[in-house]
């Protein structure tokens, strides 16, 4: 078989991934170690130049998903493949080399830039750490190019982070993430800490960079409106489970899972007439404690369509229409 006839490997493929965190018990006082299952049996893939939006509320496991993909937390089960290569248990030097290809953009641009470093040092740091350049002076030109790529003046590199506004800081964070020309960027709520008038700038920038560099994004957010705008495919998470996964338009126009329906109906639309005519599905109660999730379907305690089966058995993620999966017994 010729190389170019092989199917294109996705940049990242995750299969049956589970992550557990210890939550007390064990240790000095003895007793049985207890765990919270932050992410349970997760499978998805992201292709080059594609954005997967991961949406969920607190405790849904969306941040843990991003961290697991980057190999920042150890998975309890499942596999992670980077361009077809199993990286689930990569460690040491191979893991270090891998980090070049997968970078992260953080939520808070105030906390994620060191105030005592110049922008040059911040953006050049990954280049130095990974030995792309030997000396800081060799990185100057590259940093200037990166800064202009994200729409900052070249002389920004001589200044410190406190000279920049929130939106500009997020651009610096993106420039740093791009420095090593990664294949994947995990962006964890990259715009939610920004002012409304700045958010569009950063969204537009991320989209432009993707077109130019073919970088894949794992875009983690709680804001469904932004995800509709930026993502090609969307995963909806609830208490550590993907409850729905599919093409963007399919998810937003024909949601299958009652939780997705409720989420979509909960987001107010900035149009008084339309918004006041909408019927909202108000979910009862709170998000259950992830360390003690409900039996059966994890959403059954709040689901308006729950049937007997939902209380006993966990629904599998099934393809309800082409390229559109949902985990629900009632649909």
């Amino acid at each position: 078989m010729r190389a170019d006839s092989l199917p294109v490997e996705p940049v990242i493929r995750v299969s049956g991934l589970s992550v557990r965190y210890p939550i007390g018990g064990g240790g000095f006082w003895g007793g049985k170690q207890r765990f919270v299952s932050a992410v349970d049996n997760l499978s998805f893939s992201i292709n080059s130049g594609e954005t997967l939006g991961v949406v969920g509320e607190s405790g849904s496991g969306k941040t843990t998903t991003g961290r697991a993909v980057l190999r920042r937390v150890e998975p309890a089960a499942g596999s992670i493949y980077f361009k077809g290569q199993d990286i689930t248990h990569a460690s040491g030097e191979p893991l270090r080399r891998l980090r070049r290809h997968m970078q992260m953009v953080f939520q808070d641009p105030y906390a994620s830039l060191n105030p005592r470093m110049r922008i040059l040092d911040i953006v050049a740091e990954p280049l130095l750490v990974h030995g792309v350049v030997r000396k800081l002076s060799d990185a100057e030109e590259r940093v200037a190019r990166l800064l202009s790529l994200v729409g900052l003046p070249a002389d920004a590199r001589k200044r410190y982070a406190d000279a920049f506004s929130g939106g500009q800081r997020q651009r610096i964070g993106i420039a740093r993430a791009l420095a090593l020309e990664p294949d994947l960027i995990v962006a964890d709520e990259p715009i939610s800490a920004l002012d409304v008038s700045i958010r569009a700038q950063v969204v537009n920038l991320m989209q432009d960079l993707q077109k130019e560099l073919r970088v894949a994004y794992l875009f983690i957010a709680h804001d469904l409106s932004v995800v509709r705008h930026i993502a090609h495919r969307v995963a909806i998470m609830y208490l550590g489970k993907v409850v729905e996964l599919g093409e963007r338009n399919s998810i937003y126009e024909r949601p299958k899972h009652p939780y997705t329906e409720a989420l979509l109906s909960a987001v107010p639309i900035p149009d008084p007439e339309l918004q006041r005519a909408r019927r909202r599905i108000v979910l009862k109660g709170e998000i259950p404690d992830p360390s003690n999730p409900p039996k059966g379907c994890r959403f059954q305690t709040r689901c308006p369509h729950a049937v007997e089966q939902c209380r006993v058995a966990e629904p599998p993620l099934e393809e309800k229409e082409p390229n559109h999966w949902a985990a629900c017994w009632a649909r």
Partner: protein
Amino acid sequence: MKPQTDLTASETLLQVEGLRVHFFTPRGVVEAVRGVSLHINRGETLGLVGESGSGKSVTSQVLMGLIQLPGKIVAGEVKWKGRSLLGIDSADYVSRVRGKEIAMVFQDPMTSLNPVFSVGMQIGEVLRYHSGLNRAQAADRAAELLDLVGIASPRARLRQYPHELSGGMRQRVMIAMALACGPELLIADEPTTALDVTIQAQVLELIAKLQQDFNLAVLLITHDLGVVAELCHRVAVMYAGRILETGSAAALFHDPAHPYTMGLLRSTPRLDQLRPRLVAIDGAPPDMAQAPTGCAFHPRCPLATDACLTDAPPLAPRERGREVACWRPFAPAWEQRRETEKAHAS
């Protein structure tokens, strides 16, 4: 849920005139609020929209008497039912009004509740201070209030502490506390920003319901245009310490007159629409220690002219009961810029 306007009772409760608040910091004088005038009628919801540093929260803090040094009210008047809340001789009146007739709900329900007192104690304190109830009566009333804001088994909740409650539950407690003395105006500063989407929906429904049931006036401070569209009758858009545009929610959303209002709407992604690209507003909100001259929005405005650089436009009445502070309003600003760019290109 629809906000309802009771047109028979358009009594003005709150009137703010020419309010100016300065903060005297080591970096210089920060002019946080630079001449804000607004009013709220009985039973009406006014949305105060703005980004960080726009002065929207400072304005609400003035109403609750929460401005402390280095902040200072340097000019302006605030009247509640026609009587001043700011003069020295109005101290008696103020203590009767604040917390009783005007109540406030804050953004972060965790830091607004005292962690070492039970929920019942904290609601009871308000009742005993303002309504003179004894402990037993206060506990009864507190339970009623928790029930009113949709908290199940309220008697048991009274004995709980804030850390035992979820974020949504704490915000309900805050609302119950605000309602304790039957206020006529509820000030809600970003009441749902810290909450999850499905919990935000619950709290928005609750505020709308209370507004209707008690004919409450609500001052809703938010940056979320969707929340405004859902709850507000009228809207005031703030930027750099001034109101740039005010009018009915319908007028503002469908026919924005100020380039900033237009820009906000155009740059916000919408759940119900797919746009090829967002139209971003260039630049960033100004540092209020060095506010721009003239119209504060001019460095970011696609329509700015020389007049905008030197003179701040006054908030002037326009048609449909609207007021706009712009030298060049009622032009579809962003299209107009495109046209000019096209003309230049060809």
